[in-house]
C-alpha cells in the first residue's frame, strides 16, 4: 500500500500556512538562498537530475525545458508561471496557492535564477479572486522581506515578480495563448516554431511552467535530486498532488508518489460515496480519455496511464458512480469545449459546435445508432487536425465514452431519452432516487 508523501501540502493544516512567517517556520526561502549560492547551470542540472516533469499535463522534463534557454545571448529572459488552471475537474494549483503561495514564489526565485531571468510573471485565471488576493499579498510580503526586487538575499541577483490576472478563457492555459494574453492581446495559440524557449514573451526566450512544477523546485533544492527521485516510478519521479472529486467520500488533494493507483487513493479517501459503485473516472481532467473500474490498478504515472489509453494530465481524478449518465456527462464537457474554443481553427471551432448538437439530440433520445458513427468520425476529423490540443481534448470524452459505454448511448435511443434519473447523481439526492 503506497503511503501519502505530503511535501507541498505538508503544512496546509496549519492556520498560518499561507503567511510568510508560517512558511519560514518550516525552512521557507532557505532553498532559494541556497540556490543563489550555486551556479545557475548547477541548479538546472540538479532539477534535471531529480527527474521532475511538468505537472501541467504534458509531463515534459522541467530541467530540460530550462536548459533550452539560450545563454549569453544578451537578451532578456522571462519565467512565466501558468496558473490559469481551468480544465474541468482540475483543482490542484488553486488550493496550493491558497494554502501556500510562498512555495511558488520561492520556486520562481530559483527558476528565474537558473534561467537568468530578471522578470517573472504569474498568469492566474481571473475568476479566483480570493486566490489572486492571497498570492498578491504573498508577493508583497516577499518584496518587503527582500526576497524579491533588487539584490535579493544580498546575492546581487534582481527579480521582479508580476502577478497578471487573466480574463477567464480556457485557451489561455495553452502556453502560447497565455503569452499573447500576457502581452495584452487576445489569447489565441501561436504558430510554433518558434517555441517559447527561443521567442516567447515579447519574442524573448521564455520558460512557461505549471504552478506545481515550480512549487516542487524548492524541496528539490533543499533535499536533493536523489531524495526526489527516490519517490515515484522509473520514469515518473517524485511526489505530486492527486485531486479527487465527484462521487468520493472525502474529496480533496492527496499528495503521493507518482505511480499510486486509484484503488489506493480511494482507500485513503474513504472510497466511492456510500452505497454506490465506481462507474467511470478521468485520470487527469476532462480532456483525458475516461477510465472505468477496469483501470483501478493502473499506475497513475505518465507511462502507466498512457499505456492504458489515456493521459496522466493534471491528475484530476473525477469519480463518477453508477447514478451518472455518461451521455449527460460527456455533453456537459463538450458544451464546455464549445464555449471555450477560441475560434482560431476550423476543426475545433466548427467541430465542437456540431458535436454539441449531436450529443444534445442523443441525450434526448433523438437520432439513431448511425449518429454514434458520425460522432466518432467527426472526432477523427478533429483529433490531430486542430491547431492546438484543445481540439484534441474535446474529442477524448466522446471517443472514450462510446468505447466503454456504447450500450448506454443506444439505451437513450431505445428509451426515448435518458434511462437514468439525473437527480440520483447529485450531492443532494436522498436515498430514494428522484425525490
Amino acid at each position: 500500500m503506497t503511503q501519502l508523501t505530503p511535501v507541498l501540502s505538508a503544512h496546509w493544516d496549519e492556520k498560518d500556512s499561507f503567511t510568510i512567517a508560517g512558511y519560514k517556520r518550516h525552512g521557507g526561502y532557505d532553498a532559494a538562498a541556497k540556490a543563489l549560492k550555486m551556479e545557475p547551470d548547477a541548479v538546472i542540472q540538479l532539477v534535471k537530475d531529480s527527474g521532475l516533469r511538468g505537472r501541467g499535463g504534458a509531463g515534459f522534463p522541467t530541467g530540460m525545458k530550462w536548459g533550452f534557454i539560450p545563454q549569453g545571448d544578451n537578451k532578456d529572459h522571462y519565467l512565466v508561471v501558468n496558473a490559469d488552471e481551468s480544465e474541468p475537474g482540475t483543482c490542484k494549483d488553486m488550493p496550493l496557492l491558497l494554502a501556500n503561495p510562498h512555495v511558488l514564489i520561492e520556486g520562481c526565485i530559483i527558476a528565474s535564477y537558473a534561467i537568468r531571468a530578471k522578470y517573472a510573471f504569474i498568469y492566474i485565471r481571473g475568476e479566483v479572486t480570493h486566490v489572486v488576493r492571497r498570492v498578491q499579498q504573498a508577493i508583497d510580503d516577499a518584496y518587503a522581506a527582500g526576497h524579491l526586487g533588487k539584490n535579493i538575499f544580498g546575492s546581487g541577483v534582481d527579480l521582479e515578480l508580476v502577478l497578471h490576472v487573466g480574463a477567464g478563457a480556457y485557451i489561455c492555459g495553452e502556453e502560447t495563448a497565455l503569452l499573447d494574453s500576457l502581452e495584452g492581446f487576445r489569447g489565441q495559440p501561436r504558430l510554433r516554431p518558434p517555441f517559447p524557449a527561443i521567442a516567447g514573451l515579447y519574442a524573448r526566450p521564455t520558460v512557461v511552467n505549471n504552478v506545481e512544477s515550480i512549487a516542487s523546485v524548492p524541496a528539490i533544492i533543499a533535499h536533493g535530486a536523489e531524495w526526489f527521485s527516490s519517490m515515484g516510478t522509473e520514469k515518473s519521479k517524485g511526489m505530486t498532488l492527486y485531486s479527487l472529486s465527484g462521487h468520493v467520500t472525502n474529496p480533496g488533494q492527496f499528495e503521493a508518489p507518482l505511480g499510486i493507483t486509484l484503488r489506493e487513493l480511494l482507500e485513503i479517501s474513504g472510497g466511492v460515496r456510500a452505497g454506490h459503485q465506481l462507474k467511470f473516472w478521468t485520470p487527469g481532467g476532462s480532456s483525458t480519455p475516461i477510465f472505468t473500474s477496469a483501470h483501478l490498478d493502473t499506475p497513475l504515472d505518465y507511462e502507466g496511464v498512457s499505456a492504458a489509453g489515456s493521459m496522466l494530465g493534471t491528475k484530476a481524478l473525477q469519480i463518477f458512480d453508477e447514478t451518472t449518465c455518461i451521455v449527460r456527462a460527456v455533453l456537459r464537457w463538450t458544451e464546455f469545449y464549445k464555449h471555450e474554443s477560441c475560434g482560431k481553427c476550423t476543426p475545433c471551432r466548427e467541430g465542437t459546435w456540431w458535436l454539441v448538437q449531436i450529443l444534445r439530440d442523443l441525450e434526448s433520445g433523438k437520432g439513431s445508432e448511425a449518429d454514434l458513427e458520425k460522432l466518432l468520425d467527426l472526432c477523427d476529423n478533429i483529433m490531430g487536425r486542430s491547431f492546438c490540443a484543445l481540439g484534441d481534448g474535446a474529442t477524448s470524452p466522446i471517443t472514450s465514452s462510446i468505447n466503454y459505454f456504447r450500450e448506454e448511448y443506444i439505451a437513450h435511443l431505445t428509451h426515448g431519452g435518458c434511462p437514468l434519473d439525473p437527480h440520483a447523481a447529485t450531492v443532494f439526492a436522498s436515498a430514494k432516487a428522484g425525490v
Partner: protein
Amino acid sequence: MSNEVVDMITVVIDGFEVSVPKGTLVIRAAEKLGIQIPRFCDHPLLDPVGACRQCLVDIEINGRAFPKPQASCTIPVEPGMIVKTQLTSAVAKKAQEGVMEMLLINHPLDCPVCDKGGECPLQNQAMSNGQSDSRFEGTKRTFEKPIHISSQVLLDRERCVLCARCTRFSEQIASDPFITLNERGALQQVGIYEKQPFESYFSGNTVQICPVGALTGASYRFRARPFDLVSTPSACEHCASGCSLRTDVRRGKTLRRLAGDDAEVNEEWNCDKGRWAFKYVTAADRLTHPMVRNASGELQEASWPEAIAAAAAGLQKTSAAVLVGGRASVEDAYGYSKFARVTLGTNNIDFRSRISTAEERDFIASTVVRAKTTYRDIDRADSVLLVGFEPEEESPIVFLRIHKQVRKRALKVTAIASKLSIGNEKLSANFVCVAPGSEATALPSVALTAQSVILVGERACESAGLLSAIAALAEKTGAKLAWIPRRAGERGAIAAGAIGNLLPGGRPVADASARVDVAAAWGVTSIPSSLGLSSDEIIAAVNKGTIGALVVGGVDPLDGENHHEMLEALQKAFVVSLEIRPSAVTTLADVVLPVAAVTEKSGSFLDWEGRSRNFEAAVVDSLQRSDVRLLSMIADEMSKPISLSTVKAASKEFASLGNWDGAPSALSLTSVQTVSALQANEALLTSWRRLLDEGSLQQGEENLAGTARKPVVVISPKRAASIGVTDGEAVRVSNSHGAIVLPVLVEAIHDDAVWLPRNSRGSHLLATFGVASGAVVTVVKD
C-alpha cells in the same frame, strides 16, 4: 539576382522530386509541381497562420513520420522530406474533406445571391476537395446580414470562414489594424472599433483576398456575376505607382477593377482609389461628339470632319503652343510632342499643368531622365529618405513597399517635411521637421550611402533650391535617387518629350545632334532649336499676345497657382480642347474633341521607375478615340502630318527612337530663398493632396469618398496655445484671396507652419488662396 546565393532543398511530393529555395513552404513547393493543395488562410504575401487547417498533408522527414497531418502552409521544406497530399494519402484526403465539411456547416450556402459565386475559393474547393453531401443536420449559426464595416466594404459574418486574411492584411501589409477578430468559438467574427473606423486606403484588397463572399465592395455588390464579365489586363491611370490592374467589363461598362499580379511593382495589391475610382468614365456628362464654337459664339455639336477642319484652320492662323496634362498615356504624350514640333513648329509644350518651376525643368532634363531607381532598390536599401513626398498619400504602392521592408528588417526611413504624416508614423520614420521652404537646409544632416534611396516628390519643386540640392547630394553620396510625380502620365510625358527642353527619349533640345536625330527619324528637315516655354510662360505669352492658339489636353486650370491668368489666356486664345468631360477648358474652347478614357483605349504609362505599364482597351466597342489619333488627323488637315493614326503606330515609332545616349544637360544649384520673419498669427502654408480627395477622377464615387480622411487644419501645440484653440475647434486660414475655415488638429508640425489638405472637401487651396505651399497665410480662431 545573380549575386544572391540561394540554398536549394529537394523534397518529394506525391512521388515527384522538386527543388525549391530553403525556407519555401510545403504548400508552395507543391504548387511548383502543379499540385494544388486546398487552402483558405494561406496567402503568399501574408505571414503563415495555420488557422483554417484545409491544407493538411502527411509528412515524413528522413523516415520519421509526423504522427498527425500537418498544415502545409506553415511548414518549410527540409532535406529528406517526403510529402503526401490528398492525391496520395488517404489520411490527408479524409482530413481535408473533414475540414471542408466543418467549414460548410455554418456557411449559409447562399451562393446563388453571393457576389463571390462563380469565383469563390470556398465554392471551388468544396467541389474539388469536399464531399458531395453534408452530414450536418443541426442549426446553423446566424448573424445579421451584411454590416457595413466602412462606407465601401460590407461584411457578411455568416459567410466568413475566419481565415484572418483580411485582418492580417490590414495589420501586416497596410499597417491599418482597424479590423480584428472578436469573440470566440463559432461566434468569432471580424469586427471594427467604433472609434477607429476601417478607413484604410488599402481596404479593397481585403475584399479581393477574401476567399469567400464575406467581404464585398459596396459599389460592386449585386452588380454582376463573374462569368458575365470580360477581364482585361490594365494599368492604373491614377498615380505613378504603376499598378497592374484587371478591369472587368460587362456589355461595355466597367463594373470593377482588381489589383493585378506584378511581383516587381504592386505585388498583388493596389489602393482603393485605383480599385474603386472609375465612374468618371461612365459619367452622364461624358463628351460624346465634337463641338465647334459657331458664329454666335456658342459651342455646337459638329461632325468629325467639320471639327478637325475648324481645329486645323484655327491653329494654322497663328503661333500655337501645347498644354498636355500629366495624365496622358505615353503614346498620346508622344503624339502631342511630335504634333508640337512637326505640325506647330514649336518647342512650346509642357505637361506640367500644376505648380512647376524652371529649376524643376532642369532637374527633369538632367536627373530624372537618367534615374534608374526601382522598387527593388527600396527592397535592398540601407535607408530611405523622403523629401517633399508623402508615399501613402501620393504613391501608395511605394508606401506599401517601404512598409514591407520596415516590417521585415526595420528599414530606416527619414522624412524631411513640415508635418509628421500618418503614413510616416506607420513607417516609424525619423521626422526631420523643417519650416516650409527650408527643406534643403536639412539635407546635410541626413546620413546616406550608396545603398540609400532618396525619394523626392513633385512637390519638392515648390521649395526653391531643393531639387538641385538633392541632385547634388545624390551625386556626392552615390545614393539612388527617384523623382516620384503624382500623376500616372508624367514620367511618360518626360520620355515622350512633352516638355520644352526635351525631345523624345530624353534628348536635350539644346543639343544639335539630338535635334538631328529626331528630325531624321521624323523625316522633317529640322526641329525648332529654341527652348520651349513652360506652362506658366505659355500662359503669360498668350496674355501678352505672342501666342495665339493653344492645344489643351486633360488640363484643369485649378491645378496651377495662376488659374486667373490661365482662364484669361483660354478666353483670349484659339483653343482646341481634347477632353473626356466638360471642364473649365472645354467651356472656353473653340473646338472640343472628345477623347477616350483609359479603359476605352490601349496604350501605356511609365511608372515612377520609368517602367512601362501597358494596358489594352477594356471596353473594346468604345467609339472614343485616343488623343494621338485625333492629333494625327489635325496634322493631316494642316498638311504637316505626324503619321500616328493608331496607338500602335505611336508606340512603335516611339520605341524605335530609343533613349538619348549623349551627355544629359547639367544642373546648376538654385539658391534657397530665405523666409521673411512672420508676424503673430502668420504662418507658412504647407499642404499635399490626400489620396482620397476631390480629384476629378474620383467624382461620383460616394462609397470611396466615405473613407477619405476628414479635412482639418493642422497647427502645432505652440500655435494652438497662442491663438487659443484645442482639437476640433474651428480655425480660419486666410490670405488676400480668400479664407478657409476647418476644424483644427493640434499635431507634430513646425511651429511656423500650417497644414491643410490641398484639394479636399472645404479645402481647395489653389482655388481659394492661389497658392498651396510656402506662402504666408493668417491663422486665427474662427
